């Protein structure tokens, strides 16, 4: 069952000054379509500036799409800030990277976890208290953590609090934006395991956004690869990582050092991801692609459906 569906969603930001200098706009997200199924994880992977975080914010309605549709549980998302939008928050929650900034340092862990219940007027005082204790246990924290403040916790513990807080109103969708990027490897493994367990227990749909291909591969059922605001490839996680079709995905996979093996399979990729302000004509990837042909320089490739669960946007694949 499809929980969240993005249909050709675009988001542009005006940049530069309107009176002086040329007025430009930056296309952060360009015609992105993806879906998250109930009980499954869709991973979004890409390098900085590829629009993956904006996609997450669009999915939650924290930003308004310029065009396209965001459907959540079959219904179009209401405009951000409206009463209806606020009510929908119970069902969709965000888990973010910078937990120290995102948790109010003047509130205790208990109050933080109970806050969504208070906002949505769920339960009464004793039942909320019980719910907080249950949630603390579910994320692997103890009752004694309830009275602590965020700065008294370690990064991993704070991420658990963020998770508990997100789970409090019993959502059906979690959008995780780089949830483990700020954590050490050992703690990262704790949180990743916890996420996987919680998903199995609660049947959550997860949109997992990360720059770390390893982690994305580990947690995702489907993977969406983004480059310069566009989806260049998506499909089942194993298929995308093991048989990448798009040259960018191939380079991305090869740039991940194997353990053991290192860079034995490395495919050199020149240059760096360009800034979204200077989008090349044609295929956005062609300046870095050593197999680029004339058509790549001129015409943007369509996202081609190759199988039931496989799409790729590359001229080399569509007409080799």
């Amino acid at each position, binding site marked *: 069952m499809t929980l969240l569906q993005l249909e050709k969603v675009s988001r542009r930001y005006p940049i530069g000054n309107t009176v002086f200098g040329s007025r430009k706009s930056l296309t952060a997200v360009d015609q992105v379509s993806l879906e998250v199924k109930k009980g499954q994880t869709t991973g979004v992977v890409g390098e900085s500036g590829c629009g993956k975080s904006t996609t997450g914010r669009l999915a*939650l309605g*924290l930003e308004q799409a310029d065009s396209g549709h965001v459907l959540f549980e079959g219904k179009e998302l209401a405009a951000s*800030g409206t009463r209806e*939008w*606020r*009510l*929908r*928050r*119970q069902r969709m*929650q*965000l888990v*973010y990277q*910078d937990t120290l*900034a*995102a*948790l*109010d*340092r*003047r509130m205790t862990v208990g109050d933080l976890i109970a*806050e*969504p219940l208070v*906002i*949505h007027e769920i339960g009464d005082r004793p039942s909320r208290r019980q719910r907080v204790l249950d949630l603390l246990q579910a994320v692997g924290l103890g009752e004694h953590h309830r009275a602590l403040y965020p700065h008294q916790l370690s990064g991993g513990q704070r991420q658990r609090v963020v998770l508990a*807080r997100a789970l409090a*109103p019993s959502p059906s969708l979690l959008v995780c934006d780089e949830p483990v990027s700020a954590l050490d490897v050992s703690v990262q493994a704790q949180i990743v395991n916890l996420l996987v367990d919680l998903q199995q227990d609660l049947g959550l749909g997860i949109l997992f956004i990360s720059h770390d291909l390893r982690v994305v591969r580990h947690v995702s059922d489907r993977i969406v690869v983004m480059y310069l605001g566009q989806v260049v490839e998506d499909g089942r996680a194993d298929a995308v990582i093991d048989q990448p079709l798009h040259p960018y995905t191939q380079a991305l996979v090869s740039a991940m050092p194997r353990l053991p093996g290192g860079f034995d399979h490395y495919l050199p990729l020149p240059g760096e991801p360009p800034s979204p302000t200077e989008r090349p004509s044609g295929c956005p990837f062609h300046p870095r692609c050593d197999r680029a042909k004339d058509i790549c320089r001129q015409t943007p490739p369509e996202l081609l459906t190759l199988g039931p669960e496989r799409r790729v946007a590359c001229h080399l694949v569509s007409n080799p």
Partner: protein
Amino acid sequence: MQKKLQIDLSTLLASLWLCLMLLTAVTAPLIAPHDITAMDLRHRLSPPFGFGGTVVHLFGSDDLGRDVASRLYYSIRTSLLIAFGATVISVLVGTAIGFIAAYFKGIVEHFLLLLIDVQASLPFLIVALAMLAFFGNSLPLFVALMGLYGWERNARLARGLALAAGSQGYAGATRQLGAHPLRIYLRHILPNSAATLLVAATVTFPEIILVESGLSFLGLGVQPPMTSLGVMVGTGREYITRAPWMLLAPSIVIVLTAVAVSVLGDYLRDKLDPTLT
């Protein structure tokens, strides 16, 4: 690491001085030996006790034979009252405007930012000077006017705090939970900003004392028969050679009070918000 609250000597002295000033302000009618307008024409310009004066006029008397000590107590009362009232107004007005600018994007924000720019392009003392002269003067009006001092700085600060808490911070996180903006501002941003705004108030407070005394010194602030520290310095300047105590007593109080609040402000800043400069 020592966990004890360490208070250094200067902070201690500053607090003691401020307590003394507060006590004086509160008990001025009780401890003043004379009425502030009572003239003692036999003892005009009498020096302070210990410098050839009598115990009757502890800090000496002025050109009309009024008791400097009594006038000083009342002046402290007036000056502190004005500064306190004005600081509260300044922080409240500034915070409200800053939050409004942060919440409403677009035209409202641009308009408020322009107002802030305008205020920043005109020194407050000069604005106040013009306003006072043309509008006349009464104590409530004067306090209200002084309350405008530094509003633009507090507004900028409050806006900055609200924006910092915004999209990536705790305010954004609470917003995505579905909280009403009022809840976000009143329950999250305001309590989190309180410490910083309090520190900002300790910067505004001594400055208002200085502006108030400056205006009163120019004869445009507190009007006789009331008296304030600035009024006393203003009267004293005419007798700088013959009766320097008329000038020195209020000057010392102004300087020490301003220094004390600054020192205390530094201490509070270190304790509450070390990121502030």
